[in-house]
């Protein structure tokens, strides 16, 4: 991490929901930094708290049954302490978001040109009509909508999934935000289109020197587009590392399991696939100790720290990992399973 103030700094963030069955701790004490121009990835299975966390950064899920604590500092200003009127200025201008499903992110009753223009006008209300049109046209051109002048008068249903996602990206980038949050931007798209969209996001990031937070469950996408990765499990950080270190020397047993599962796909043999036994835990009444323990292959027994203490993030090898295993033990597993 750098010495200068990071663009975004999240400190001990907790997000919980009150439900009839108890309190769901969706995000349970997460901290990280994102620097200008950096691409950070957040990986985890469904229900690991990825989306809740990024919605909290945008303050999108603050109903009456939600409890949020911690700090979200954007250039040193705590977003959680801002009044709603000021938060509105931040959304779209400083931080923009791309959602998973481009169809439900667009309003079916308005033309795409109108919707992209609206995103601009919210923050620049005194712009003339001709100017806005030029800006929208330029934005649609940049994301590769062919024949943008004509297409801006079309409605969302007249576009394919990939084209819709491009429109959503145009909308997100029109105010040149410092931080772009992309929540599973390619999950709903085909692989050939996924490749196009990822390249587009990356080239636009370079152009604007904005930071990107990419949420995904696909480790392949992570390997290709990201510098820093955070692996989440049950609302907590399991591991935090550079992409190279994460793939070469994964420290947390969960990360190791995920990588083994993915790599056994890439081998052409028809042997048995490696899987992580069991299923992710319920987030209601999570144990204070390690949340991964029931599925962990290296769990040290019911009397050990695994069952009694919550593992804190600490440096193991090249990564930060939340695991009680000793560094020697971790490097032994790495040598056995991940040496090249």
């Amino acid at each position, binding site marked *: 991490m750098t010495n200068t103030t990071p663009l975004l700094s999240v400190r001990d963030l907790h997000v919980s929901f009150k439900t009839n069955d108890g309190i769901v701790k969706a995000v349970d004490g997460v901290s990280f930094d994102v620097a200008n121009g950096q691409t950070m990835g957040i990986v985890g*299975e*469904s229900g690991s708290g990825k989306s809740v966390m990024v919605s909290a950064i945008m303050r999108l899920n603050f109903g009456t049954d939600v409890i949020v604590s911690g700090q979200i500092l954007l250039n040193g200003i705590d977003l959680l302490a801002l009044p709603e009127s000021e938060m509105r200025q931040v959304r779209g201008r400083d931080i923009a978001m791309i959602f998973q499903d481009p169809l439900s992110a667009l309003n079916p009753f308005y033309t795409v040109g109108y919707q992209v223009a609206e995103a601009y006008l919210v923050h620049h209300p005194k712009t003339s009509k001709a100017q806005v049109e030029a800006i929208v046209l330029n934005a649609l051109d940049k994301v590769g909508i062919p024949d943008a002048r004509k297409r801006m008068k079309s409605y969302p249903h007249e576009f*394919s*999934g*990939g*084209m819709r996602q491009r429109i959503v990206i145009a909308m997100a980038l029109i105010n040149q935000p410092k931080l772009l949050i992309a929540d599973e931007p390619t999950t709903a798209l*085909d*692989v*050939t*289109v*996924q*490749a*196009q969209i*990822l*390249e587009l996001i990356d080239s636009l990031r370079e152009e604007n020197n904005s930071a990107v937070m990419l949420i995904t*469950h*696909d*480790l*392949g*996408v*992570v*390997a*290709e587009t990201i510098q820093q990765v955070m692996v989440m499990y049950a609302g907590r950080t399991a591991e935090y590392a550079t*992409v*190279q270190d994460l*793939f070469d020397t994964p420290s947390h047993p969960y990360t190791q*399991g*995920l*990588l083994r*599962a*993915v*790599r*056994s*796909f*890439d081998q*052409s043999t*028809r042997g*048995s*696939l*490696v*899987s*992580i*036994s069991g*299923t*992710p835990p319920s987030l209601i009444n999570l144990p204070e100790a390690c949340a991964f323990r029931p599925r962990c292959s290296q769990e040290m027994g019911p009397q050990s720290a695994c069952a009694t203490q919550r593992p804190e993030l600490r440096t193991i090898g090249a990564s930060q990992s939340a695991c009680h295993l000793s560094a020697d033990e971790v490097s032994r597993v790495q040598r056995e399973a991940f040496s090249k």
Partner: protein
Amino acid sequence: MTPILEVRDVKKYFPSGSSRVLQRPTGQVKAVDGVSLSLQKGKTLGVVGESGCGKSTLARVLTRLIEPSSGSIFLEGEDVTRISGSELRRMRRDIQIIFQDPYSSLNPRHSVGEIIATPLRIQKTVAKSEEVGRVKELMHLVGLNPEHFNRYPHEFSGGQRQRVGIARSLALNPKVIVADEPVSALDVSIQSQILNLMQDLQTKLQVAFVFIAHDLSVVRHIADDVAVMYLGKIVELGPANIVYGHPTHPYTKALMSAVPVANPVSGRKIGRIVLTGDVPSPIDPPSGCRFRTRCWKAQDICASNEPELLDRGDGRVSACHFPELEA
């Protein structure tokens, strides 16, 4: 050997649009447009392609959930394209389906025991008194706790629900199971569990799978043969290791290179072919070769002549005027 399942030149056109005045459809969506396949006992045929290429329509035609517009389907050499009534019901014992979404394909008001027993009741293959026993046996087979037969789908996780779907499809000892994206709704760590289960069951029960997926690595792992579809047609078909090892159709090649590799060193964009544009509309597919609008090798002949599926000499066929043959 007679293939367990064979389809010849199957087509499925859906009417689309309608003229207000004439009250009849103005166009046709050619969802499946002349597909021929065959599948041997106990083997797996993978079908891959992007969304909208007709994979799921093919799955539904194979199982006779929808009627093909033309062509024929043979089950163990017997033509089952036009059968109906009790004959069709008997055929359903032999060919079953697993659906993509384990949430919407199980009735939330029925216990999993009832869900798995339904095929047994409809087909009356098992006496009422033995029903519970058979259900428990099936649950055990797919790795569910048989004591949970009274529970409801919402009490199970996604992976467990998909196991219920698999148990239901196995209830009648079918010879062929069509699995339409059976793991795409599941997390990676759970996907492997389900794929391992399907492979074990295949070894044990000698059931043949038609495995439909958009995920190429999943298909590579489970399939003996693989068919690549584009806009309702097969563009390449052959043994999985040959097709994956050296794709001859440009589309197959592009599709494979687009898959992100979970390795930051070797993965980064080496020889990546990024296709431009989207899949054209199946209402009005391009003339000649359907892939030509996105193909970097397209020439005049591609627009005028439709390429035939030609044997490439290694047990695989592909439809391209300029195939990537080995030098």
